[in-house]
């Protein structure tokens, strides 16, 4: 406000009042729609519009802590040294942290010498209630006994109402310093870390979450034993739970240590054992690499949240490969360390660092076990930051469409044609190759059988096809002995199909062998084709950088190549690259790849169905870009048009595009449109896939969820009931998706005042979630919230 002084009239009050009211109202809209709505409302009154824009400007400029509290002053910190607290006397201050100060104290009563640490919190307990809860928390912590955890011995409040805890005094080094100082090698670091996990696990079994795991809280004694301090301390003074008077100057995000905080902590959501698993993941990352996965440009809460919640850290091995500095003492040089980390350890660390709590190791013990598998040379369970599990995500199942599904069949058919030709050639040279002809015919029969069994929409679940392909691998070298071209073709076809079925390690092996064969004697086009397949494997494994390289190499090989096969392949590679980038969170780059795919497809014989996929990918990327929702909708419409042209509306792909379009509308808050789209998608799936197909269940579930969101409980009920029925038929008993259907039903019954039914479904959902491994704690919290609300109701 620089254009105004005491004497100028400023805005007339009525205009200013109107601006305030309109600005408030406009906040209901998505930011992309706000301006046009406001412009319309202002109806040519540019002064009014300008005033609103100034408010909008101020809204952006105001710091988060503006108007947070009237008083910033923190009470003066009294001297404590020499004070007596219960049986202890304070000797010296030894540290200060986010929540208070730490002192060394000694026992002066009770007849034996004991040095302890006393933590004095920066807070006052002003009510008996708060004191009682502090005491309760303290007793829970005091019950925690494990050689790897510093014990809570005593606690209380000082004369001036400051709460304190007396804890075992640990003399040791921060784990990171210990590892460096003792030059521990990779295996020794992993073993030490496993012991940290064991201590965390014990606490979790007692229902205690550390909440602030970081090197400063994981010490190693001179004897080499890890010891965790400050276990559960962060919760003792959880301001909300305890209603204490904490200084109001600190935001939640600043209270915790952002480098180690999980996305849910940064967002202020419920903290669970999975949050500790995440922090352990950051710690392991640091132990193995020497630096942390995230670095913050600033400590602004919004910046921290964006970094932790939205950006994907580099795989440990990639970071080691990229950076200039050498690895910490004790670890091998960068090249060897990179090799050691690549693969299993990357995957282990990245699993712990997943954004969604449910995607991480379910327990600290599971984390330690997987490290044990690595150390013992067994295959690990971890699947990395992403991977096939994305396919299984219930609601988002079809967001990242690839050309893979449709292309699998095409490649198997192409292989079949080639095999048949080989068989014919062999047949023509009777005297020469009777044996080869037999083999080629066997391969042909085999492929025909495979194709006959496959269903493009069933094969993600089809064990038969995957099994058959797996079995085909071992005999392949022998079967195609002396026919390298055919062998390459078959390995490519099998590898591509395996990749499509989520059999990633086997697929990678086949594709790499195909690539080696084709590098020896194949065209640029042949190599590009295999590189495309390998890029997709990298994509599924979240090796985004590597995948990007493979696709780029394929694009480079295709440069200047003409002909239909090259044209199609070029468009496919760009399309897959668009999908990879979207999964890597690089939506703007994904959009660029989709546009390149469209350019590559221009003027070629590429089919409408592939074009529909490209437009669909483009639309998904736009839907994730701030303010591009309307463009996203336009792209979806193009995709729908093309899909309809290729297959008509009654096709599962058409239903997928409708489903994804609904998500963009969901982001805009157009619930009516969302439900209309889900309804149509459901109708199509019922007609084309049948009422019992898993995709039909997804549509039923999405529709029910949309109707619950819109408050249309009466319409949601039959859909949720049917989703439950289909899920029960389609999934093994106890599958979390069955629980999810129960959860939706519980919400419907809760909202329509049928508490008995609501409770019954919520309990069934809870039972399933609790028994199933790796369920997102947020799901559990939702159901527990319903049960708690029902318990409170009269």
């Amino acid at each position, binding site marked *: 406000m620089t254009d105004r002084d005491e004497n100028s009239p400023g805005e007339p009050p009525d205009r200013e009042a109107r601006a305030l009211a309109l600005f408030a109202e406009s906040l209901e809209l998505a930011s992309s729609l706000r301006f046009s709505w406001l412009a319309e409302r202002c109806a040519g009154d540019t002064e009014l519009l300008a005033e609103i824009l100034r408010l909008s400007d101020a809204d952006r400029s105001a710091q988060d802590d503006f108007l947070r509290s009237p*008083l910033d002053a923190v009470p003066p910190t009294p001297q404590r040294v020499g004070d007596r607290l219960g049986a202890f006397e304070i000797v010296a201050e030894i540290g200060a942290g986010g929540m208070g100060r730490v002192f060394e104290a000694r026992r002066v009563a009770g007849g034996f010498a004991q040095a302890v640490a006393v933590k004095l919190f920066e807070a006052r307990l002003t009510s008996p209630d708060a004191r009682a809860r502090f005491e309760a928390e303290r007793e829970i912590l005091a019950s925690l006994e494990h050689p790897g955890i510093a014990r809570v011995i005593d606690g209380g409040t000082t004369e001036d109402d400051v709460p304190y805890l007396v804890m075992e005094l640990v003399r040791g080094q921060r784990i990171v310093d210990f590892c460096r100082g003792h030059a521990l090698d990779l295996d020794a670091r992993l073993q030490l870390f496993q012991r940290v996990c064991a201590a965390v696990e014990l606490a979790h079994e007692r229902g205690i979450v550390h909440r602030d795991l970081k090197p400063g809280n994981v010490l190693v004694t001179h004897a080499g034993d890890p010891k965790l301090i400050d276990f559960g301390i962060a919760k003792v003074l959880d301001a909300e739970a305890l209603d204490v008077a904490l200084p109001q100057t600190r935001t939640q995000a600043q209270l915790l240590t952002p480098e180690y905080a999980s996305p849910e902590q940064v967002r202020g959501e419920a903290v669970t054992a999975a949050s500790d698993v995440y922090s352990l993941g950051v710690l392991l990352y640091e132990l193995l690499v020497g630096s942390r996965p995230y670095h913050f440009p600033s400590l602004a809460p919004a910046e921290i949240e964006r970094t932790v919640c939205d950006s994907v850290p580099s795989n440990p091995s990639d970071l080691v490969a990229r950076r200039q500095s050498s690895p910490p003492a004790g670890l091998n040089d960068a090249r060897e360390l990179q090799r050691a980390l690549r693969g299993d350890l990357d995957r282990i660390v990245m699993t712990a660092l997943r954004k969604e709590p449910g995607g991480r190791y379910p327990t600290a013990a599971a984390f330690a076990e997987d490290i044990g598998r690595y150390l013992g040379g067994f295959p690990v369970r971890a699947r990395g930051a992403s991977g096939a599990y994305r396919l299984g995500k219930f609601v988002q199942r079809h967001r990242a469409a690839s050309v893979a599904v449709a292309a699998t069949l095409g490649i198997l058919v192409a292989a079949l044609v080639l095999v048949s030709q080989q068989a014919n050639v062999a047949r023509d040279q009777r005297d020469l190759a009777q044996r080869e002809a037999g083999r080629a015919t066997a391969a042909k029969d085999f492929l025909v059988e495979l194709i006959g069994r496959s269903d493009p929409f069933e094969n993600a679940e089809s064990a038969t096809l995957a099994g058959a392909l797996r079995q085909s691998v071992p005999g392949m070298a022998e079967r195609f002995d002396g026919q390298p071209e055919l062998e390459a073709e078959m390995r490519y076809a099998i590898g591509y199909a395996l990749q499509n079925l989520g059999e990633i390690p086997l697929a990678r092996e086949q594709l790499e062998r195909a690539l080696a064969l084709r590098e020896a004697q194949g065209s640029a086009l042949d190599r590009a084709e295999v590189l495309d397949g390998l890029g997709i494997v990298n994509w599924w494994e979240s090796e985004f950088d590597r995948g990007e390289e493979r696709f780029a190499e394929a694009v480079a090989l295709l440069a200047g190549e003409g002909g239909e096969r090259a044209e199609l392949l070029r468009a496919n590679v760009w399309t897959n690259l668009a999908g990879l980038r979207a999964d890597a969170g690089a939506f703007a780059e994904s959009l660029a790849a989709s546009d390149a795919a469209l350019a590559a497809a221009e003027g070629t014989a590429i089919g409408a169905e592939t074009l529909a996929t490209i437009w669909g990918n483009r639309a998904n990327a736009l839907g994730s870009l701030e303010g591009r929702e309307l463009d996203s909708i336009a792209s979806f419409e193009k995709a729908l048009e093309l899909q309809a042209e290729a297959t008509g509306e009654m096709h599962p792909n058409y239903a997928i595009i409708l489903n994804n379009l609904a998500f963009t509308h969901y982001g805009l808050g157009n619930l009516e449109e969302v439900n209309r789209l889900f309804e149509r998608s459901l109708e199509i799936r019922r007609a084309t896939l049948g009422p019992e197909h898993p995709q039909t269940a997804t549509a039923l579930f999405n529709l029910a969820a949309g109707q619950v969101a819109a408050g249309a409980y009466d319409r949601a009920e039959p859909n949720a009931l049917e989703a439950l029925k289909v899920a029960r038929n389609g999934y093994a008993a106890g599958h979390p998706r069955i629980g999810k259907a129960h959860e939706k039903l519980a919400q419907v019954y809760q909202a329509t005042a049928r508490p008995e039914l609501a409770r019954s479904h919520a309990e069934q959902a809870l039972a399933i979630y609790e028994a199933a491994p790796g369920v997102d704690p947020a799901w559990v919290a939702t159901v527990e919230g319903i049960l708690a609300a029902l318990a409170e109701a009269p």
Partner: protein
Amino acid sequence: MEQGQDSLTGWLRAWSAGDAEAGARLFESVYAELRVVAARQLAKERPGHTYQPTALVNEAFLKLLRGTPVDWQDRVHFFAVSSRIIRQILVDHGRRRNAQRRGGGNEITLQPELHGETNDAVELLAIDTALDRLESLNERQARIVELRYFGGLTIEEVAVATEQSEATVSRQWRAARAWLYRQLAA
């Protein structure tokens, strides 16, 4: 306290149900209690140590309702009443402090904390003035600011106290906050 605890919770309920007179009586009784608490706080105040409004209200609340179970809505309404009073007390206090400082030469030795404190008091008074102006433009928004800023109520609690949806409160709060920011940044 002259009136029994029963009448206090009774007033809270009546006031929640829209009885304006019960609200006025509630205001009076809480005002008296908050004054006592604040006076004691001020008496033992040390340089740089201002009281925390939430603690203040908590203490008054506990004194007034000793042992009486209060449901959440009543509690929220109590805080709503208190936030207006706190505004008054803080602003009075800030004015006095400011006046003392301008007068200079008195016994208060505030040098080490002077910087931060001056800003606090000045900002408080500026907000108070701006809030008066906001009230003339949009009373609803001014009330929300009072509850949030002086009363320390969460969005959810403001929604209960003012019988609006959380989404509405949140939007109105954001707009008012932007407006105040413009005023204070001038």
